[in-house]
């Protein structure tokens, strides 16, 4: 592998490097001699491309124990989530009812379509979470109504790694005949996913969070009983008309290979990730005044921590040598504190001073140790200037130091 040119990369929940084996498979399909066929064409070029696309579909399906025909290619998980939420609500709304239920800590690609539905006249319930990011199933059960068409809950939270018990959630939701959509982007390859055992109706997947290319994802749509969605795009018969548009063969092949590797190597990956995350937490918690946002039993690749006494912007400015996310990459550009951490009751300034560190297949113990070293040096330097840290050392509570909601942390 080439020598690293940038900072230590601990941002694998934002995106992962493409596995060289995936890249290799993709290149065949960018080849001028044979790799350019349109999978919808009936001539030889097209048939060859279609075969590759279907093999890839079968590989993605295999990771989640689905049938290949239950998967629809999309441009990524954002589209998959939009298609699931908007597609189900718009298709079933007139018959089943115009109410959808989701959770405050979902990804924006679920929350924003829900907001869109609200603008279209749907009722939307956003469930609160507990202080540790978990979901109270009684709260969920209480939110279901006779006119609820869809419940959308993520498997693994992208900021905290907190997992929701999908099987139990499905039991609650399915008892009423309501459809269940699961955003499984961060779960794929890290937690076992069996769509039948879990009992989900729709499930979103991404390639680039699992060592595949950007620009492709998939939506699982249960066949028995058949789940229908209203398309977001119109204009062709590809993907049964649910998602028209020429299938990007190289991208599909890349996702297929990435998911094949995850199926074969996932268990090893997870064991490594778990050990690295423990090493990271041991190193960071030894600094003192470092709080975990989320739960210890979360997904093995994500650790979200808050540094008491440190200002978020000052912390970010200390992180030249470390690529990690100050709150979510999706919301950090806006400067607002993470909606996930705020929903968990983390005070705003502590949410700003939180960092998501996420590990991947190519992370090493050396990466982890360097990250701990850099963070320790930066945090200690800033704390020496911080009146909040002085207050913390003097025994003042987080509530006193940060204001409302600070009791979230023990």
């Amino acid at each position, binding site marked *: 592998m080439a020598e690293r040119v940038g900072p230590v990369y601990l941002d694998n929940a934002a995106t992962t490097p493409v596995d060289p084996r995936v890249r290799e498979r993709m290149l065949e399909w960018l080849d001028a001699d044979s790799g350019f066929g349109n999978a919808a064409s009936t001539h030889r070029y097209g048939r060859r491309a279609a075969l590759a696309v279907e093999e890839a579909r079968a590989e993605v399906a295999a990771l989640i124990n689905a049938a290949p025909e239950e998967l629809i290619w999309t441009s990524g998980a954002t589209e998959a989530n939009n298609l699931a939420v908007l597609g189900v609500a718009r298709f079933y709304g007139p018959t089943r009812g115009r109410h959808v239920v989701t959770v405050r800590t979902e990804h924006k690609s679920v929350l924003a379509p829900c907001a869109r539905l609200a603008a279209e006249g749907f009722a939307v319930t956003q469930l609160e979470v507990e202080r540790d990011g978990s979901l109270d199933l009684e709260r969920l059960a209480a939110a279901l109504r006779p006119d609820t068409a869809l419940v959308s809950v993520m498997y693994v939270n992208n900021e905290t790694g907190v997992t929701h018990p999908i099987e139990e959630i499905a039991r609650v939701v399915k008892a009423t005949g309501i459809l269940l959509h699961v955003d499984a982007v961060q779960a794929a390859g890290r937690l076992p996913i069996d769509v039948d055992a879990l009992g989900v109706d729709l499930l979103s997947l991404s390639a680039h969070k699992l060592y595949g290319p950007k620009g492709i994802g998939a939506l699982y749509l249960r066949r028995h009983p058949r789940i229908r969605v209203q398309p977001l795009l119109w204009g062709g018969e590809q993907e049964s008309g649910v998602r028209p548009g020429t299938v990007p063969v190289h991208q599909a092949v890349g996702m297929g290979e990435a998911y094949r590797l995850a199926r074969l190597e996932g268990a090893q990956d997870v064991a490594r990730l778990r050990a690295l995350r423990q090493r990271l937490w041991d190193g960071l918690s030894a600094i003192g005044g470092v709080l975990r946002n989320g739960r210890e039993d979360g997904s093995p690749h994500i650790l979200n921590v808050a540094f008491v006494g440190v*200002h978020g*912007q000052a912390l970010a*400015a200390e992180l030249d040598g470390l690529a990690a996310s100050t709150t979510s990459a999706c919301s950090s*550009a806006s*400067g607002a504190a993470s909606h996930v951490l705020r929903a968990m009751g983390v005070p705003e300034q502590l949410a*700003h001073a939180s960092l998501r560190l996420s590990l991947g297949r190519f992370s090493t113990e050396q990466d982890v140790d360097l990250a701990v070293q850099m963070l320790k040096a930066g945090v200690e330097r800033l704390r020496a*200037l*911080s*009146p909040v840290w002085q207050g913390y050392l003097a025994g003042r509570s987080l509530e006193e130091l*940060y204001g409302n909601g600070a009791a979230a942390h023990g």
Partner: protein
Amino acid sequence: MVEVVTELPPAVEARFRKPSRGGRPRPEAGYAHGSAGNVRAGTLVLLWLRLRERRIDDARFEVFGGPSAIACAEALCERLTGATVEQALAITGLELAEGLQLSAAERGVALVVEDALKAALQAGDSNR
């Protein structure tokens, strides 16, 4: 709206990376103390001034804030050291902000620093 910090202005960078007057004096006795801002609003500035015959011979700060706030407090303390109370009273947040090339969105932190200065000078006044 908070701006995303990509690159700090040189005057901010230097003072943020290596402040020489950060950290409260120990012991604090003999220093006039003032503070302004608050944690929830994102900037809290604490200042300590040691006055000798209406002249400031030592100035220290603590800041909970971003690089601009830390640099601004450091820049202020640099200017205060050796200054008379009258000279100190004339210092404004705006000129500190301009000296550090703070963006319009970040000038607010300089005003918090100015308020902390006023509070410390007032405390120094009532101490005598």
